[in-house]
């Protein structure tokens, strides 16, 4: 699995030319698959979009903050209303079986390895 988020290309693809924030992620691999954690603070559960097309995994989220009327921003570190990150999945991962959890702004994804890619012992035949 590799990170392929090139911002101009990804923005063009998502139809938001103004840009998006790149969320930080942790990626951990074990024998049966990959677990990914992504920080998406300020995104409601139903404003997350997860897409797997061919071997491309796209994570998108719209930030919604409760802004008071007449609010004048004086300092902004989160200055774009959107997160976007794209990864290319490698062949042994099973895109059909991706599961996701979202809790307090942290997205947890589990991408299992396909059955044929699980570690197995190969028997040596003797004729």
């Amino acid at each position, binding site marked *: *699995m590799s*990170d392929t988020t090139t911002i101009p290309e990804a923005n063009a693809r998502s139809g938001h030319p103004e840009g998006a924030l790149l969320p*930080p*992620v*942790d*990626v*951990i*691999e*074990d*024998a049966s698959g990959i677990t990914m*954690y992504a*920080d*998406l*603070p*300020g*995104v*409601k559960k139903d404003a997350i979009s997860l897409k797997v097309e061919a071997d491309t995994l796209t994570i998108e989220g719209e930030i919604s*903050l*409760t*802004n*008071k*009327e*007449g*609010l*004048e*921003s*004086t*300092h*902004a*570190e*989160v*200055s774009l209303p959107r997160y976007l990150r794209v990864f290319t999945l490698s062949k042994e991962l099973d895109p059909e079986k991706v599961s996701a959890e979202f*809790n*307090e*702004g*942290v997205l947890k994804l589990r991408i299992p390895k396909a059955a044929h890619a699980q570690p197995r012992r190969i028997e040596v035949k003797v004729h």
Partner: protein
Amino acid sequence: MFYRTYFPRDLHADFDRLQRELAQSLEWAPSIRGLVRGGFPAMNVGTTPQSVELDLFAPGIDPTKIEVNLEKGVLTVAGERPSILPKPDAGTTVHLDQRFTGRFRRVVTLPDDVDPNAVEARYRDGVLHVSIQRRAPATPRRITIQ
């Protein structure tokens, strides 16, 4: 021919210098407590005539373990984000490790007219929102010349 430089070629040091220069050119006389970008949690600050509103982007933290203090017009938000990474062993590999872990603390100087008794803090979707009322609305007032 011998290639020599006067300074060690440290890319990180160069970037740090560049970042400092950029920060200085953006704001010539910043607040003495600074307001450093890129820290955790990321922070947005805004004001309305009635209140000061802060958003701190701190996902995945138990809200009961975040400390918010307001003392003498200085707001401090502190806490800790535990690591979720597994202990290194033969079975697992950490490919990317970008999320913040460890203790954090952010300090902001608030305007003079905030009311220390009217503070509200709310944690939702990984964002801590702090709202502090201002004492008198900062509306322009015409002063008559005597």
